[in-house]
């Protein structure tokens, strides 16, 4: 029985304080992990895990050998001229690198989950600039935390534990010295951790842009807050919010999914990043920074890998084994049906995307590489099982604050199951030989 500290790959926080007691075959005890992490570790022997390669024959999935599944998949890819590669947010950086290599060799289009999630913030940051911070800095120095459109208490359960409640080097008293501001239209579970000094702002739905604009105006010229308040928040609360923003020593804004709602005419994220810049230039004492809350454990990784290898962080289109310029994303590609087969890697687009997109996606041959059953696995044509990164194989992953962390290996994978990286390698080799 070995007791050791491991890194949990349940969500993007990548907690490194989880204690696992294991005999090398099973995980006997799991200490410190939240429910999300527990589910991840339970996946090893879960009911919905895929253990065999499957091929759809006459409408039913049939068990086949890995070789047969690989041959059929290679056959599909070989006969297609516009393959689509998507997912790559729950695989290691090494596998992402191989994915880009595969896309390059088959002249495909590759995109990650980040494009429908926090990739938008990074894209906007190219114009406005962004101040990032790390979890360790928040623990040791932060005194103001703003949850904007994010329900961290339920989406990333241990985030508040680590940032708001922890006792850091310069924040020895922990919770008492840190102020929490929650801006959300719904009263979520995150409101439950409020203390007496904290500010809860229940904003009207979809009115974040008005609030940001008023704050920006007030930053430039005092007295521009309307008497009646903005977006359901009264004048005094707005003044208090701005006082907190400009008076903080080390403030953090957590951008949640609530702010990322796409609007055609306005870009809320851009305005928010401009507000952060404005506040940072105005105040001399400290600074405000941003943390992007994403769910999948290596979503930030794809942006870094693609940027370092290809010079572009998402939506890579290859032609003649070269990167070509394109303004298309995975959404527009599927909407126009500009593809003839798709390779999905560790993701579940059928349940993530709207119905009309999902229908178009499943109309074409779909190859899925994943370790568990999902909505996509019920409609996929070929399913290849993979090992669970962080438990059955190691790899590099980027944390929520864009810090690379090396995941470790605890157990051995089942004999017939390969890692994501090895599977993609086999694809590349088989395509070369064919």
């Amino acid at each position: 029985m070995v007791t050791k500290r491991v890194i949990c790959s349940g969500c993007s926080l990548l907690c490194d304080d989880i204690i696992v007691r294991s005999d090398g075959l099973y995980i006997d005890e799991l200490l410190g992990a939240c429910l999300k992490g527990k589910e991840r570790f339970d996946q090893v022997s879960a009911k919905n895990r895929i253990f065999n390669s499957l091929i759809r024959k006459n409408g039913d999935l049939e068990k086949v050998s890995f070789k047969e599944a690989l041959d059929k998949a290679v056959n599909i890819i070989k006969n297609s001229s516009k393959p689509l590669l998507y997912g790559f947010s729950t695989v290691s950086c090494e596998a992402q690198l191989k994915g880009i290599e595969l896309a390059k060799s088959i002249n495909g289009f590759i995109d990650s989950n980040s494009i429908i999630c926090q990739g938008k913030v990074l894209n906007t940051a190219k114009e406005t600039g962004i101040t990032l911070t790390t979890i360790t800095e928040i623990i040791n120095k932060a005194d103001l935390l703003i949850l904007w459109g994010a329900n961290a208490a339920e989406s990333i359960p241990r985030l508040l534990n680590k940032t708001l409640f922890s006792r850091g080097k310069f924040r020895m008293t922990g919770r008492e010295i840190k102020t929490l501001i929650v801006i959300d239209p719904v009263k979520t579970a995150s409101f439950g951790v409020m203390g007496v000094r904290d500010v809860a702002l229940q904003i009207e739905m979809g009115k974040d842009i008005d609030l940001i604009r008023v704050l920006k105006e007030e930053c430039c010229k005092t007295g521009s807050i309307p008497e009646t308040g903005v977006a359901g928040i009264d004048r005094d609360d707005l003044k208090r919010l701005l006082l907190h923003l400009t008076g903080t020593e080390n403030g953090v804004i957590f951008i949640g999914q609530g702010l990322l709602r796409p609007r055609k005419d306005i870009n809320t994220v851009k305005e928010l990043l401009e507000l952060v810049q404005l506040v940072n230039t105005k105040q001399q004492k400290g600074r405000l920074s941003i943390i992007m809350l994403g769910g999948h454990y290596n979503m930030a990784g794809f942006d870094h890998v693609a940027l370092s290898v290809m010079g572009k962080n998402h939506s890579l289109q290859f032609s003649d084994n070269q990167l070509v310029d394109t303004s298309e994303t995975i959404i527009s590609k599927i909407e126009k049906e500009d593809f003839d087969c798709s390779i999905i890697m560790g993701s579940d687009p059928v349940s993530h995307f709207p119905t009309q997109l999902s229908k178009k996606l499943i109309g074409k041959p779909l190859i899925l590489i994943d370790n568990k059953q999902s909505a996509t696995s019920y409609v996929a044509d070929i399913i290849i099982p993979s090992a669970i990164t962080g438990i059955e194989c190691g790899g590099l992953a980027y944390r929520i604050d864009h810090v690379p962390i090396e995941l470790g290996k605890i157990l051995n994978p089942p004999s017939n199951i390969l890692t994501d990286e090895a599977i993609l390698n086999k694809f590349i080799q088989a395509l070369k030989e064919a």
Partner: protein
Amino acid sequence: MELYKFLPKTNCKKCGKPTCMSFALDLLQGKVKVDDCTPLLESKYKKDYDKLKELIGSEEGKEKELKIDVDTDLCDGCGICVTVCPVNARYCPPTLSGKAPDYPPEKHQLFQVKSGKCELLNLEHCRRIEAEGRERECRVCETYCPRDAVKIDYV
């Protein structure tokens, strides 16, 4: 001394104690009962007997046992109660992402997250029992639980 006032003060030794004073002390600690003092049952001490019964009874009402309930259906193992509890705050070993509980758990540790659910280890070091004075009204684990899974009660 309050209890001694209402005893017969004769040092009759019928209860087995050398003096009425020592009987009063044992009475306070709950080692003996009021009925063990046989002269008190006589009619002339009737008033004192009733008064003593009332005093002991009211003190028994106060001595309720502390109980912390953790609802495992609501708990999602965020571990806020583990971090926020002031008792084991200084025993946590630091990791890359902040202080973390250790294995095997410290003897001071009240809560522990195991298999995604919070469980109560022991209560003897809880601020509400252990420390004298102002720390007695500590309710941080109950206040800051985002899902209201922790409940402090006296039973």
